[in-house]
Each structure stands twice: as structure tokens, then as C-alpha cells.
């Protein structure tokens, strides 16, 4: 066992950091504080990701056959940590390199690959994920946005909600219902966001600018060539996507960075000597590092090619715990950070609430742990 990054991994991290130091503007923290979905950051990301691509830093973890460097899951982890600690200058494009690209490679037609992979690999594409609906949140498979076959096209009617990046995205990775079979009746359509009949409304949010939206589909016409995989194959494809994105964003790393930043601010003003403050800070650090190592254990399984099961939910929940603890620490001991006193801590605090809600609510993670890690008998349905 070895819990240290090796020399090559450290060099990779240092190289990324050096690139960020060179590339990000001087007022970056202030600029990026409204989160990766803000219009300003989204626009910035198109240029920034292009430069990452030119320097081989956009998707180095992809297999060589896909044009990557085959560096694998640890490098993907390092890349994600460095970027999130820097306020995610890739904007929403992190989704492209984490799962949309690999999913396209695995399930896309030749025409789809030719259309969608080049903008991803050149750092220009922005996708949104049309998953949740007003009546289908945690119970995603109950979704009702309907795609009805009409000759060579589907006509799509329905509504999505909480869709990140929808306001500025080029393309939607859209889950639609094509039959009544709950899971096998779901089909993925790749829908250009400028297709007539799509209306996007931004939802004012606590978590940053431009992050969540409602998306309405009113008789939207989508050619059958825009279907990813077969009709009814969506659940399987999403399952594949999740193997590339099981852990999601490395929030434990951002939380630990926020904690260290908060402590440094308190130290600078001579307010880190009180035991009450020090004890709480250490509790936060323990939660962050517990989440980190539980998450790294999952990455290790990916490296070893092992099946990743419900234990990823345990790491996810540990991450929720540390996000909340660090958020509470700042609220309790550095309230001015949430009132203009620190762009970085403000960004962290705004994003922190997302941890237990997005990409599978914390309670769903607990359900999964109960059923599949502890193997408790299932609840009656």
C-alpha cells in the first residue's frame, strides 16, 4: 500500500498547476466566483479548454485509441482535483472529458462520433444533461418527456429541470421516454439546443450564476440519426457513463482547500489560537480526509479493473459530510467570507450545497449503502 503520489504523478500535478498559473488571469478568483456555469466562465472555458487541448491536458486519461495518452484513472483524479481547486476553469466541459466523450466513443455511430468528438477534443463543446424532470428527480426512471417516432424523426414533448449549463450549451444529452417499460422504455437523443421548440428558463439559485434551468420541449423534431444507441438502451448507456463518473466532482479536495484557506485567513488575523476553533477545524479535516481516502479506494478499483459497486455511494456520502462541515466552519468562524470577504470561500460555499443534492441525492446514496453494502432486506414498495 502506498498513499503517496509517485514522482510522475506529482510532476503531472505540478505541470497542470504551472499551466494554470500561467494561463489564468490575475483576477481569476473574483472572475470565477460565480461558478463554472456562469456566462463569463463558460465563454472563458472555450478558450481555456482549447489551450488545454493544445497542451495535451484536456483528456490525457483517455485511452490512446481515443486520442488520449492512456494515463488512466489516477491522472483523471489529479486533473479533476487541480481544476476544481482552481474554481473549475473548464466550466461545464469537465463533463465532456469525464463521461460524454467516452460514452460517445463506445455507443455513438460513426456519423455521431465525427460530429461530436472533434468539438469535445478541441475544447469547444458544451453539453447539458437532460435528465431530471419536475416529477422525476431521485426516481429518474419515472421520467415522462416523450419522444414519438414519426417516420425518420422523433417528436419530443416534455420538460426537464435543474439542467446545468442549459442556457449556453450547444447540445443536450437528453433522456426521453419511447415506451412504457420503466427502464427499458428510455432512449437517449442528442439534441442541438438551437432546435426550434426548445425554450430555456434560468432558475434563480443559491449556487451561482446560470447553473440551473428549466428546459421545455414543444414538438421538437429530432432526426433518428441523433439517437444514441438503440431505442430503450438509455439505462444501460447511463450505467456505462457512470463507471467513468462514479465519484463525480472531487468535492472533498475543494472542501479541504477551502478549509486550509479559511484557517490561513484566521491565522493571518491571529484568530486561530482558540481551542474551539482549532478543534472544529481538525474535525473538518478528518471528514475531508476520510472522504478523500474512501474515494481513492474507488479510484484504485478502477485502476485494477475491478467492478465498482455500492461502495462508491459510501464515498459520495462521506464527501457530503465534509462539504457540510467545512461550510459550517466558515459560517461559524468567518462569516465575512460569505459577504464579499473571500471570493474563493464564497464560491466554495455556494457550490457546497450541491454535494448532497445533485447527481443522486444523499438519501439515495444511503439507500444504496443500506441495500447493497450492508445488504439489509429491502424496504417494501
Amino acid at each position: 500500500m502506498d498513499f503517496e503520489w509517485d514522482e510522475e504523478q506529482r510532476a503531472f500535478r505540478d505541470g497542470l498547476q504551472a499551466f494554470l498559473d500561467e494561463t489564468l488571469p490575475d483576477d481569476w478568483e473574483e472572475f470565477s466566483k460565480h461558478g463554472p456555469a456562469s456566462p463569463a466562465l463558460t465563454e472563458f472555458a472555450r478558450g481555456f479548454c482549447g489551450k488545454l487541448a493544445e497542451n495535451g491536458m484536456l483528456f490525457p486519461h483517455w485511452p490512446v485509441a481515443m486520442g488520449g495518452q492512456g494515463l488512466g484513472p489516477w491522472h483523471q483524479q489529479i486533473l479533476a482535483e487541480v481544476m476544481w481547486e482552481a474554481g473549475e476553469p473548464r466550466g461545464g466541459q469537465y463533463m465532456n472529458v469525464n463521461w460524454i466523450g467516452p460514452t460517445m466513443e463506445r455507443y455513438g455511430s460513426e456519423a455521431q462520433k465525427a460530429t461530436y468528438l472533434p468539438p469535445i477534443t478541441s475544447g469547444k463543446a458544451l453539453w447539458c444533461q437532460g435528465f431530471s424532470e419536475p416529477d422525476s428527480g431521485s426516481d429518474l426512471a419515472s421520467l415522462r418527456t416523450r419522444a414519438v417516432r414519426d417516420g425518420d424523426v422523433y417528436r419530443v414533448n416534455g420538460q426537464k429541470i435543474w439542467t446545468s449549463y442549459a442556457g449556453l450549451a450547444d447540445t443536450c444529452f437528453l433522456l426521453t421516454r419511447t415506451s412504457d417499460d420503466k427502464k427499458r422504455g428510455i432512449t437517449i437523443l442528442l439534441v442541438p439546443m438551437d432546435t426550434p421548440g426548445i425554450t430555456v428558463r434560468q432558475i434563480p439559485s443559491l449556487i451561482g450564476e446560470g447553473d440551473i434551468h428549466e428546459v421545455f420541449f414543444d414538438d421538437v423534431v429530432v432526426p433518428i440519426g441523433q439517437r444514441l444507441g438503440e431505442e430503450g438502451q438509455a439505462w444501460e448507456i447511463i450505467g456505462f457513463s457512470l463507471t467513468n463518473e462514479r465519484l463525480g466532482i472531487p468535492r472533498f479536495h475543494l472542501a479541504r482547500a477551502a478549509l486550509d484557506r479559511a484557517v490561513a485567513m484566521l491565522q493571518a488575523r491571529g484568530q486561530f489560537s482558540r481551542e474551539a476553533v482549532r478543534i472544529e477545524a481538525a474535525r473538518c479535516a478528518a471528514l475531508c480526509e476520510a472522504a478523500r481516502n474512501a474515494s481513492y479506494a474507488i479510484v484504485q478499483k478502477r485502476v485494477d479493473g475491478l467492478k465498482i459497486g455500492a461502495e462508491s455511494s459510501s464515498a459520495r456520502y462521506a464527501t457530503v459530510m465534509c462539504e457540510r462541515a467545512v461550510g459550517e466552519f466558515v459560517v461559524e468562524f468567518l462569516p465575512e467570507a460569505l459577504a464579499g470577504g473571500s471570493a474563493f470561500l464564497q464560491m466554495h460555499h455556494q457550490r457546497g450545497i450541491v454535494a448532497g443534492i445533485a447527481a443522486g441525492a444523499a438519501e439515495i446514496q444511503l439507500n444504496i449503502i443500506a441495500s447493497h453494502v450492508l445488504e439489509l432486506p429491502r424496504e417494501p414498495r
Partner: protein
Amino acid sequence: MDLAISEDQRQILDAIDSLAKPYAAVPLHDTGFALVSDALDAELAENGFLDVMAMELGAATAVLVVERLARLPFALEAAATALVRPLLDPELPRPLCLIEEGSWRAPLRFLKPGATVVVVGDGGVRSFTAGAEHIRNAGDEVLFAYPMAYLTVLPSEMRSHDVSADVVRAAWRVGLAAEAAGLLAGALASTVTYISERKQFGRPLATFQALRHRMAEAQVLTNGVYWLALKAASSGDAGDAALAALHAQEAAKRVTYDFHQFLGAMGMTLEHPLHLWTYRLKALTSELGGRGEQALAAAEAIWG
């Protein structure tokens, strides 16, 4: 970075499982607060399982051993022997009893004549072999699931060890976290079994979400303690050790009452074995000054 268990480590754990198999089940109805087995203790020691760190297999391997053994219902002194003894003298007689200078009035786990008492303090690290004259039996009043006794006096002459108190405290914290991880896992498993079988309102208790979510949270904490203990053993860093011990004591506090609660009235009995794990966890929560002291030690190591 490599968090996978090595082939050597897996073989050691398999060997422990096989050796400990006769001790995995609890003899119901004839246990008091603590369950001990001299035979199991002797077998483990003779087969070298407590010396894996001294045998150059590394502190992380010692953590794996301690964690695995703590899942057993039997209380046995493994953590101090496996993680602290190699730093002092691998030949020190077992069991080892660790105390902080100045807090020797607390009851001491495993203290008995012949045990090595290790005193850790600002004056350094010293030890002595306990004799009957140093010990007061705690009688039947002990509510912890360890054999415990009181030190009545420290001898004027003790052996000094050429190792810093901070290094010993760090190893102590790693051992504490490793043992707590196993105890948490054992208590969790015991509770899982009970609530999966016990039915009320026509269905297993485990099907009620009020219990499921708290059980799942206990799993998350248990997993966290396990990985923090391994991380701390692997890095040898004082801050990592303090974080591991802190998280262990936090987790112990968080889950112990819950587990008994979930057993209902059965959780009040000595007939159910749950207390064999939880009442050891209770004892561990006071070690090294408790959570606050681990937190302060962590803060000092991390941020100065």
C-alpha cells in the same frame, strides 16, 4: 498511489480468519461485560501475527491485522503490541498497557501482573513490568468490555526508551483507529444481523428507513476510520495519526447508542453480544484525552 491490499497482506488476513474461526461466534449467556480467551491470544502471538510491523511488513499491515482482530467478539491486546512495541523493544512482555504521564488514575486496559506498562509523557517514554503490588483489581464494577485494572503506584525505577513521546503517541493513535475500525465493523455487523431478522409490524426492522439511513451513515463512518488508519500507518505522519484517532472517537460516539437503540430492549441485555464491541468502543473514546485532544494534536500538526 496504490491502495490495493497486497498478496502478502491478503494471505495474512486469510490466515487470521482461519485461525480465529472458532472464536468468531459468541458463546451466548455466559459472558460478562468482557470476553477474553487466553488460548486465542497465545495462538496469535505464537504465530507472529502481532509482530508483522517488526517483521518489516509495515505499519499498514499491522493496521490490517489489528482491525481484523477487533472484529472478533473477544477482547485481545493487539494494537499496542503490533504498532507501539516495535518502536520500543520487540521483546517487551505482552500485553502492553499504554498510559499518558499524569493520567494514570484511569482504569487501564489489559493491566495484570506481568504486563508491560508504557508511560508516555514529556519526560520521555518509560516502561516497567507490572507486579501485583502495582495493581488494584477493578472488581465487578467495570462497564467496559475489556479486562481492566487500576495502577496504584508508578515504580520509582522505570526503563527509559530511546524514542520520542510524539512518535509513540502517533503510533498509539494509529492503533486506536485501527482497533476502533474493527470494533465499528463488528458492532455494525452484529446490528445488521439482528435488525434483518427481528420482525415488527410484520416486517424486518431493517426495512424501516429510519434505521436504514442511520445504519448507512454508520457504514460511512466505519469505512472512513478504516481508510484513515491505513493512511496514517502508511505515511507515518503525526497529523494523519491524530486525524485517524479523532475520526475514530467521533465515530464511536456517534454510533454506539444508535446500535443499542436499534436492538430495542435486547440492546439492554448482556445476552446479546453487541456490547462486546460497543463497550470496547466506549473505552477507546477516552484514550489520549478524548476527541478534543486528538483534534488539537491534529490542528497543531497540520496548521501549526
